[in-house]
């Protein structure tokens, strides 16, 4: 508790965000486990960033930077604008859909914020949407992807709870669509209420022209989605292949990027990667200390023991616990630590573990876009070069929609369980 208060104070004072995380970890470690070798913090920091899926992040940043430096991104987005620019809320709805689809295949919400957010944000701003709305939309829509297969969060939950990963994957699709729908409705209402002007409807000739101009850039979705779903490469490799494609396109074909531009782009990529990943590292050290001290166990065991077997209460408790956990700590770690703690209560109340998996993954998604600590927020701060508070300013409506989704999913479990039950027959 003391450590938590210290962390919040340090955070608000304006310390670089690695400091509250590391100071919190040190405070607990050195006051409660004085016998411990403090180098464990460094071990965990290095371990936290040594995950193969994280390699996708710098690779997508690099690809996005190359595309933005050249004309690829513009050509691609022209097509989108020509098709949806005349619809109320069309552009933000497309943004939500793109983030969801890209996140679904890339497996990394951070990579999605970069790869989709970087090119789409200027478009939305130009169309008259405010920056706080735009950024909040991008980081929250990227998180829907955690629910769409393949989802690392669900795989981890499947292992920790002994639930079929295949069933979990299918169960995430309904909720994913539900949230996308809610976001789209919000975008529609937002654009009407703020009277965002729409573009005149493009003619089919204009659309055809835009598509022709963008023909080669359509290689990106083909590479990323086609490459991954055909088994040609892993999500991480898809990232580096899109770097290769971006280089070929921009340097050899469009000739918008010169070889001498590359070091500068790579440097900017490296720096953004570093300032985000040092927080992933510090967050891992912090969560190690939390689990070593068995703090989740201590906090939750009494509550769970007295929870009885009311499924609504237990599902609510699970959602709240995972959400709070994911506000501070990496979602994967939260899932690994908390799932076994709740398993007995879930079994005793006879709740479908698949439903719990969907809820848990959703909380993980919400948590990574919710202050104070969330990797998507950090990524957005780093790539958009905006102050932290500006980044999170627009998130409350999205947060409320996600909260609403959580409640809907608890009250109507069929949204999650319908597809898996079809599969079982």
């Amino acid at each position, binding site marked *: 508790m003391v450590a938590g208060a210290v962390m919040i104070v340090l955070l608000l004072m304006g310390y670089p965000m690695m*400091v509250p995380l590391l100071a919190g970890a040190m405070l607990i470690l050195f006051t409660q486990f004085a016998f411990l070798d403090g*180098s464990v913090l460094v071990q965990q920091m290095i371990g936290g960033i*040594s995950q193969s899926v994280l390699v996708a992040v*710098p690779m997508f940043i690099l690809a996005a930077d190359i595309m933005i430096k050249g004309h690829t991104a513009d050509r691609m987005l022209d097509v989108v604008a020509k098709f949806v620019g005349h619809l109320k809320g069309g552009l933000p709805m497309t943004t939500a859909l793109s983030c969801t689809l890209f996140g679904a295949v890339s497996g990394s919400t951070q990579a999605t914020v970069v790869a989709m957010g970087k090119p789409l944000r200027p478009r939305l701003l130009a169309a008259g949407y405010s920056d706080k709305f735009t950024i909040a939309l991008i980081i929250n829509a990227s998180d829907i992807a955690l629910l769409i297969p393949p989802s690392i969060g669900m795989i981890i939950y499947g292992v920790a709870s002994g639930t079929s990963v295949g069933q979990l994957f299918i169960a995430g699709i309904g909720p994913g669509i539900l949230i996308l729908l809610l976001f789209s409705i919000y975008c529609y209402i937002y654009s009407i209420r703020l009277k965002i002007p729409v573009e005149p409807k493009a003619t089919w000739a204009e659309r055809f022209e835009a598509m022709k101009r963008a023909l080669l850039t359509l290689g990106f979705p083909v590479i990323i989605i086609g490459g991954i779903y055909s088994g040609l490469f892993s999500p991480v490799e898809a990232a580096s292949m899109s770097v290769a494609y971006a280089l070929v396109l921009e340097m050899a074909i469009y000739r918008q990027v010169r070889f001498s531009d590359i*070091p500068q782009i790579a440097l900017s990529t*490296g720096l953004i*990667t570093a300032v985000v990943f040092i927080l992933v590292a510090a967050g891992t050290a912090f969560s190690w200390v939390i689990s070593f001290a068995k703090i989740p166990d201590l906090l939750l065991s009494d509550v769970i023991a007295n929870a009885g077997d009311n499924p609504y209460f237990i599902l609510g408790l699970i959602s709240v616990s995972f959400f709070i956990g994911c506000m501070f700590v990496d979602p994967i770690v939260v899932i690994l630590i908390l799932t076994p703690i709740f398993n007995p209560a879930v079994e005793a109340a006879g709740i479908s573990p698949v439903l719990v998996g969907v809820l848990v993954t959703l909380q993980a998604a919400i948590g990574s876009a919710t202050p104070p600590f969330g990797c998507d927020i950090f990524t957005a701060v780093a790539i958009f070069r905006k102050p932290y508070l500006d980044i999170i300013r627009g998130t409350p409506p999205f947060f409320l929609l996600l909260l609403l989704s959580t409640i809907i999913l608890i009250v109507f479990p069929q949204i999650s369980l319908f597809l898996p039950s079809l599969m079982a027959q």
Partner: protein
Amino acid sequence: MTASSYRSGGWRSALQKPFEFFDRVLDVVERTILVSAIMAMAIVSMINVISRNMGASVSWADEVAQLLVVVVTFVGLGHGVRMARHIRVSAIHDVLPPKGQKILIMFISLTTGALLFFLGVLATDYVTNLMRSGRVVPSLGIPVYYIYIIAPIGLFIGSVQYFLAFVRNVVSPEAWLSWHHKDEYAEEDEDDQVGGSMTPEEPGSADGAETPRGGSQHG
């Protein structure tokens, strides 16, 4: 260039030349490592795609990419302090008067420098342990500490950069987030300009880009 803003006393100018030299060398080294590591990551990954689909996976690809991430993170830790790019929340800071802001930044720089220094010591312990145990990178067979030594180095450099930020606030008027960067939120484009002129091949241009924000206002 930036140096003009803190050049006033005799002892300062005596220290200035060697300081500027080391500062510039460090800057170039950091940039070179960041650029090469990012490019290497892309290349390694591409090689693996091609070779696996041709029937011979490169068993070290995954591990090398992860090691490069570690290198980028810790080199970028130090470089990020230099460039004043570390992520922070500026809630209290924003409501303070300029004088209060400067004091707050000095306090933060000094304590953050101390914390990173302490962490650097812990990192040195960790690397020493790895050296003793002889742990190797499985696919490459090279000792792990060859790579992880970057952790203490990055932390110490980050620590020194924060101490320098403190010193800068002592010797120069206004508030400074790092030796070279004033306390103001750089917009996206401005940063591109900074990055743009600083390819590793052109060490001299580094300071040039900072002139509009650093030197000219205080020279």
